[in-house]
């Protein structure tokens, strides 16, 4: 697993309080990991800070799963 994926997973585990092995490639933050809509906003905020990138609102809406987040951040950074 890439360094980016590790860092994203750490943020997700800490923020949502879920087990690390639940954070699979296609795990949906809301449907599988118990996030509410505001949690997803906070996750995006945390990704922005961790990776020093800007994630615009329209892009943030497309980040639904752990895999989406890793893919977006890999392309952006």
């Amino acid at each position, binding site marked *: 697993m890439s360094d980016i994926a590790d860092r994203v997973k750490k943020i997700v585990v800490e923020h949502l309080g879920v087990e690390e092995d639940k954070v699979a490639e296609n795990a949906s933050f809301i449907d599988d990991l118990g996030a509410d809509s*505001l949690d997803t*906003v*906070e996750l995006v*905020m945390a990704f922005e800070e961790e990776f020093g990138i800007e994630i615009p609102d329209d892009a943030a809406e497309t980040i639904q799963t752990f895999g989406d987040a890793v893919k977006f951040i890999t392309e952006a950074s």
Partner: protein
Amino acid sequence: MFDLTGKSALVTGASGGIGAEIARTLHCAGATVGLSGTRVDPLEALAAELGERAHVLPCNLSDMAAVEALPKQAIETMGSVDILVNNAGITRDNLFMRMSDEEWNSVLDVNLTATFKLCKGVMRGMMKARWGRIVNISSVVGATGNPGQANYAASKAGMIGMSKSLAYEVASRGITVNAVAPGFIETAMTDKLTEDQKAGIMGQIPAGRMGTPAEISAAVAYLASAEAGYVTGTTLHVNGGMAML
């Protein structure tokens, strides 16, 4: 009364009568205050009066780029914005049938759209801190309406609806969003009224007098306090009984 030591508060419209008193009260309670307004001279004078923990942050709220920059400037200057008081407001009164789009838009822009943008600008920091207080200064006319003030009343009612919606969204993060709705308050705005107009207004106020800016700022200080943590989405009417809502 309430201890705001260690908190930073951004107050818009701090050059006006009510805004200046809100800044004084929050400062007196221990908060660091960011004084925003269009007129720099009264802001400088107020900052000099308050001494330490007071910062002047001029901003023209009809300039949307300036509005978006204000929260960033406040955070850079004070370290954070824990308390946001959206007090700035303008009037452009006219009969509804004569009201121009420009009169409508300018009041909605400053009173409502700037409030939306400022709330948005401080929200990230408040969410991370898991603590925040937003107090939006509405008006009794937002609830009752007022002839000649369709634009102003719409903007003030809009602030209440916006506050309630935002209050729902962020309550779980320790952030409260409330409104204070003043009635007739002794300020430069009401000084301009004629004696006849004042007598007419007094007839509608059970308390038989106008309110003072300090009576508004006390309500703001309460809603900004830790003690008011379970109060959110509400509108505190401070109007001498003029409208019991």
